[in-house]
């Protein structure tokens, strides 16, 4: 479904990603793990077109590299960014509505689905996004992403700042979403949990892929254990 | 080579709209003289209404361009600053239209002024209406140098005539709404309403005055906005408004009517008194400069000379605290059906003042 070859990207003159190759098949959950600053978020930004890159990125055989970010969304790639980036002066409902900007017809159904997944959002539907707590904002960001009818969902650290209980809810939700036919590319620091639910995973180190395998293989890999799981 | 003279004017900035009239008047003077075989090289400078620029312009003219005389600047502020330097550089300055008295009251040898200063605007108006024995007066004027100085002298004159001041409304220029101020004036029910405003403000004020039904016995406009053709053309509001001016086209000064006709043909609009002042100042400066060819001689020639043109007789005299000031007789005009008619002083006019004002 998504095919990335020889991808290079960076900020200004500073290169971050060098020669990254990744493929994702339809209906897969794929995790990318790596330490801070390895370039995980940068990878997602390159895919969703927020930053410029060189190399090949194709989605369902169409090249994405030259498309503008808002056109890439139209293709069904929805990116839930790191740091949430919700609209601070809009209410919860308005934030969600914006998530469904391209899918006005299904808005109501999607809204109900999101509220079912995150009842807290329904409770706070008229609170300004900017005044929500950190974790509440994270729910809002994920919910907003789901409003966009993704075919491929890019999640950047969705469990960041979530309570353990809620982290479970979110990982459960990711599974559910995936089961409903959405492909997921997951970037997580919560390596254990993310690899547990992933079909496959990649390990990225200073901008390059150094290891790949199924979720299980990686979880049992010595290096991975040492570097990320503190064992 | 022809002698060089400078011309400092407000071509840009807030005063540009009046500046343009001066530009036109001066340009016509140069052309007229050229036709008569008198050649001068004119160096034009813009001060944008900023005294700092006017000073730079003057210093550039006298040191770099080596002009022997300068006409300008238009605004009082600029003229004041430049005038204070004229004796230092000893290059004569002829002020065409700036109204502030001080400019020619400091005893500067090299500063000459053609137009009548601010106090005359009010005194001539008061003289014109004195015979009708008005009792009360209200002032409505722009918070500018010209507005404030003119009203000050008007208050002095009013005091002498025994007029009682019933309202005093100083306003900031460029506002869209003067109704509240005018309503206050209306409530005070004055015989005379004395107005000082620039171009379009005058139209605005009179429109709103009409709107709220302000009808004194006379509207007295001191120069500027009440003396433009544009104002007169707004017959609904301008009829019977009385105003003081340096110049009219129906005055019996030599060439005035002809100037008006030619100006209109060339610039497709009526000449304002600023244009006439600039024309005459530039004509006097150019003729005298080309005859004398040096700043020192030019100063002497201006001091001793006598001219009679579209501004009537011109002589730079010392009187009543002034130095090198042309004791220019100002005129009072009244608008009748969109046309200005000179109504005072009697020796320059054909028509009589209509009093009181009626809609």
């Amino acid at each position, binding site marked *: 479904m998504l095919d990335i070859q020889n991808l290079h990207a960076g*900020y200004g003159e*500073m290169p971050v990603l060098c020669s990254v190759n990744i493929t994702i098949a339809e209906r897969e959950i794929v995790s990318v*793990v790596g*330490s*801070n*600053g390895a370039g995980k*978020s940068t990878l997602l930004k390159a895919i969703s077109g927020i930053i410029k890159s060189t190399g090949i990125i194709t989605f369902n055989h169409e090249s994405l590299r030259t498309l503008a970010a808002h056109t890439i969304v139209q293709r069904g790639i929805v990116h839930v960014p*790191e*740091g949430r980036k919700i609209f601070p002066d809009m209410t919860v409902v308005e934030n969600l509505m914006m998530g469904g900007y391209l899918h006005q017809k299904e808005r109501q159904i999607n809204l109900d689905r999101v509220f079912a997944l995150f009842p*807290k959002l329904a409770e706070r539907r008229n*609170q300004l996004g900017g*005044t*929500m*707590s*950190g*974790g*509440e904002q*994270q*729910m809002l960001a994920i919910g907003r992403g789901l409003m966009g009818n993704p075919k491929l969902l890019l999640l950047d*650290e969705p469990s*960041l*700042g*979530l*309570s*353990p*209980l*809620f*982290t*479970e*809810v979110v990982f459960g939700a990711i599974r559910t979403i995936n089961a409903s036919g959405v492909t997921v590319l997951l970037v997580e*620091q*919560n*390596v*254990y949990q993310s690899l547990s639910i992933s079909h496959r995973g990649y390990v990225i180190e200073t901008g390059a892929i150094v290891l790949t395998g199924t979720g299980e293989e990686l979880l049992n890999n010595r290096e991975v254990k*040492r*570097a*990320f*799981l*503190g064992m | 080579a022809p002698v060089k003279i400078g011309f400092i004017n407000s071509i840009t900035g807030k005063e540009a709209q009046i500046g343009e009239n001066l530009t036109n008047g001066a340009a016509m003077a140069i052309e007229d003289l050229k036709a008569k075989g008198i050649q001068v090289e004119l160096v034009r400078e813009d001060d944008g209404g900023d005294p700092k620029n006017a000073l730079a312009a003057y210093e550039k003219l006298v040191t770099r361009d080596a002009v022997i005389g300068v006409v300008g600047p238009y605004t009082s502020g600029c003229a004041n600053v430049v005038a204070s330097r004229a004796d230092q550089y000893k290059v004569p300055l002829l002020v065409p239209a700036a109204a502030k008295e001080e400019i020619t009251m400091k005893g500067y040898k090299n500063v000459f002024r053609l137009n009548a200063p601010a106090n005359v605007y009010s005194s001539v108006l008061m003289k014109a209406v004195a015979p009708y024995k008005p009792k009360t007066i209200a002032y409505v004027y722009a918070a500018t140098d010209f507005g404030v100085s003119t009203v000050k002298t008007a208050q002095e004159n009013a005091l002498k005539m025994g007029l009682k001041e019933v309202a005093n409304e100083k306003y900031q220029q460029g506002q869209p709404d003067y109704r509240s101020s005018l309503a206050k004036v209306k409530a005070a029910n004055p015989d005379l309403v004395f107005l000082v405003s620039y171009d379009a403000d005058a139209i605005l004020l009179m429109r709103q005055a009409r709107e709220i039904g302000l009808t004194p016995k006379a509207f007295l406009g001191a120069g500027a906005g009440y003396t433009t053709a544009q104002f007169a053309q707004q017959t609904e509001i301008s009829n019977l408004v009385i105003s003081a001016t340096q110049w009219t086209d129906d005055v019996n000064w030599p060439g005035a009517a002809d100037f008006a006709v030619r100006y209109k043909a060339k610039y497709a609009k009526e000449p304002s008194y600023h244009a006439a002042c600039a024309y005459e100042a530039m004509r006097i400066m150019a003729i005298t400069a080309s005859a004398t060819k040096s700043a020192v001689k030019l100063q002497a020639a201006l001091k001793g000379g006598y001219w009679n043109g579209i501004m009537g007789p011109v002589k730079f005299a010392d009187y009543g605290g002034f130095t090198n000031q042309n004791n220019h007789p100002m005129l009072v005009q009244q608008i009748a059906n969109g046309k200005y008619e000179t109504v005072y002083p009697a020796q320059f006019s054909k028509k009589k003042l209509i009093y009181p004002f009626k809609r």
Partner: protein
Amino acid sequence: MIQHLLHISHVSKHFGGNVAVSDVSFSVDEKEIFGLIGPNGAGKTTLFNCMTGFYPATAGDVIFDNKKINALRPDEVCRLGMVRTWQRVKPLGTLTVLENVMIGAFAITNATRDAEAIARENLQAVGLSDYADKLAGSLPIGLKKKLELARVLATHPKMLLLDEICGGLNHTETDTILEIIRRVRKQGATIVFIEHDMKAVTSICDRIVVLNSGEKLAEGTPEEITNNPDVIAAYLGGGYNA
């Protein structure tokens, strides 16, 4: 009565009709590492904001080092020795990493040279030395968290309020941060620690308070907390096994 370094007494905070913190009381002793946990939106960050002068508390008192600090400005609170990090990191974007930490160090010195020395020490401590000359705005989220920590450490505080300082770090990196915190405690600082990573919380905290919907749900040692059925229901979830 025992002297506590920090005493929170019946603090409440309302936002319009929204009750973020409601009548919360607890005390923290000197040299303690004190955990503050609770579900999202429980009011943890809001409590920090009330303690450090960013929000006025609607009711209640905050007593620090025997002084009532409710009405003080944030900078005054900092100079008394209580300093907080930000859950939503706030790097001084166009300054370098080193300069960011120097700003912290200036709380205890006026000399630029000393400030630089202190800053370098603390960068070293959190492992950011290599990034000293990078612009703070360009750091990835994990390193920004470390920068937050280095910056407050440089003020040599009596009490550190850490708001999800390990969020966005993996276990190995979290362990290094915990190591730093232990070291700081050894040097005499007291720490209040907000975190969702229960492994970190239980391994480092002496005592824990759990907030839920603005109210205090439980208080106790890590074991007590992790076995408390209310806490499990509201926060930890069934899948949790310590």
